[in-house]
């Protein structure tokens, strides 16, 4: 990885708000993430974890501070930044009859990269196929997404963001619908991605399937980061619990 010390994600005293909210939801958050870091974000419901990911992805108005991802200011140039950001969202509810297949949805992840007025290439399809295979979706590749189970849909969204070849990967509770075996598989996959130099940030309440590597733990509470430290995978659960109780 070139420039191993450069921050891929850089938040500087950031305050973000939702349109129409009275107070900023994220308050005074500063964060520096380097290539290849594996970050677990914990904290109680409503703490602002999803909001933090949305802020990094440039999807929310930033009222103060700066957010830079891969050298792009996400506030002024969000579209360019998002072509490099993989982001698996927490809440998706697809209509059971939505007329899109697994393959189409996975390919969609690359649409921004492909650019205006262009069709997908053989290379794009290669990435789609390998992402689909990696998540064990090969047999349901041509099925309609709305008719899959919640866990299968979650895997499709993960595949979509892998096919995108992101330079930063954000996942909001990616394990919530997955069975135990799949959790471990996905977790190993994410570990490989991080080892390849791409920072992986996951919001999770499940700490049993973390990969065996150094993990940076962030705990959020009331829109602030109250804990930010390196840890072994086995100690993450305890760290999050004690930090949340103490706060």
């Amino acid at each position: 990885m070139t420039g191993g010390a450069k921050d891929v994600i850089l938040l500087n005293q950031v305050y973000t708000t939702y349109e129409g909210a009275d107070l900023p939801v994220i308050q005074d958050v500063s964060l520096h993430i380097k290539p290849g870091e594996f970050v677990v974000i914990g904290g109680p419901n409503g703490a602002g974890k999803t909001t933090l990911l949305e802020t990094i992805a440039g999807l929310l108005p930033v009222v103060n501070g700066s957010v830079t991802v891969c050298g792009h200011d996400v506030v002024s140039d969000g579209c360019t930044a998002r072509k490099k950001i993989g982001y698996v969202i927490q809440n998706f509810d697809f209509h059971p009859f939505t007329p899109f297949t697994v393959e189409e949805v996975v390919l969609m992840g690359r649409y921004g990269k492909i650019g205006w007025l262009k069709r997908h290439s053989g290379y794009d399809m290669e990435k789609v196929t390998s992402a689909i295979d990696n998540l064990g979706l090969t047999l349901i590749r041509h099925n309609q997404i709305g008719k899959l189970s919640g866990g299968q849909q979650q895997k499709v969204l993960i595949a979509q963001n892998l096919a995108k070849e992101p330079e930063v990967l954000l996942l909001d509770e990616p394990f919530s619908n997955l069975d135990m075996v799949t959790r471990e598989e996905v977790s190993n996959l994410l570990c490989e991605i991080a080892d390849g130099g791409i920072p992986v940030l996951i919001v999770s309440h499940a700490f049993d399937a973390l990969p065996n590597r150094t993990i940076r733990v962030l705990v959020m509470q009331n829109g602030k980061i109250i804990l930010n430290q390196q840890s072994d995978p086995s100690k993450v659960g305890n760290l999050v619990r004690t930090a949340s109780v103490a706060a």
Partner: protein
Amino acid sequence: MLEFLIPNNVLCHAVEAMLFASLGCALLSVLITQMNISSIGFTMSHAAFAGGSVGAFFGFAIIPSAIFISILTAFLMGPLSDRTRMHTDTTLGVLFGTMMAVAIFFIALMQGTGKGFEASSLLYGNVISLYREEIYALALITILIIVFLIAFYKEITAIVFHKRIAEIAGIKVRPIYYGILFLISIMVAISIPIVGGLLLYVWLVTPAAIAYQFCNTIKRMFIMAPLIAIIISVTGAVCGIMYSLPVGPLTAVVFSAFFVGSVAFSPKRKVIFHKH
């Protein structure tokens, strides 16, 4: 355009109008039904209705006034649905009521002058006495819709699937979304004098609703919906004119019959029964 096929001038114009109106509307119907913004149909038709009645009241020609107000509303549509932070459909509902009120207000003011009746004709449309220019306008907007769909197919389908996910993919959602709302609005404004505001609604929803019963990808819907719409509409125009029946209502009723039929035979509604 089709004179070489259909020597009867009235019939020829009617067929051309129905062909383009149904093709353009059916393509849009796929977007409208999948994005759950079907109220854009009646909102826009009432914007045209309001425009027509305001125009009539102040002594302007009805159709240009209707188109003018519709285009104005078309420009407002996107930003308005953003600002209000509600479902686009809710904003449209409010707008629909407002337009209806404006229309009725001015028609009431014109009671006794006969001009109100002229404006009401926008609700029913007329395929018999069309100007050449109206047909050209219809052809133009339909071509524009096709070009827009082909050029931005990726972006449009991603937005139809899930706006947030499209945005995360790095797509500029807003200009495309506004573009979709704008094209729908223009199509409605131009089709209204022909098929009428009330019946236009059928064109903007039913073709996709029928296609939806048989298609499981959006690509197929984009092909099947226009085919169904063109066949029914052109047949409706020919039969209506040959047997002196009102073309718009006749076609609309046939559409609904097809919809009922398609639901009855849809593979999507198939349920496997077990004998106990």
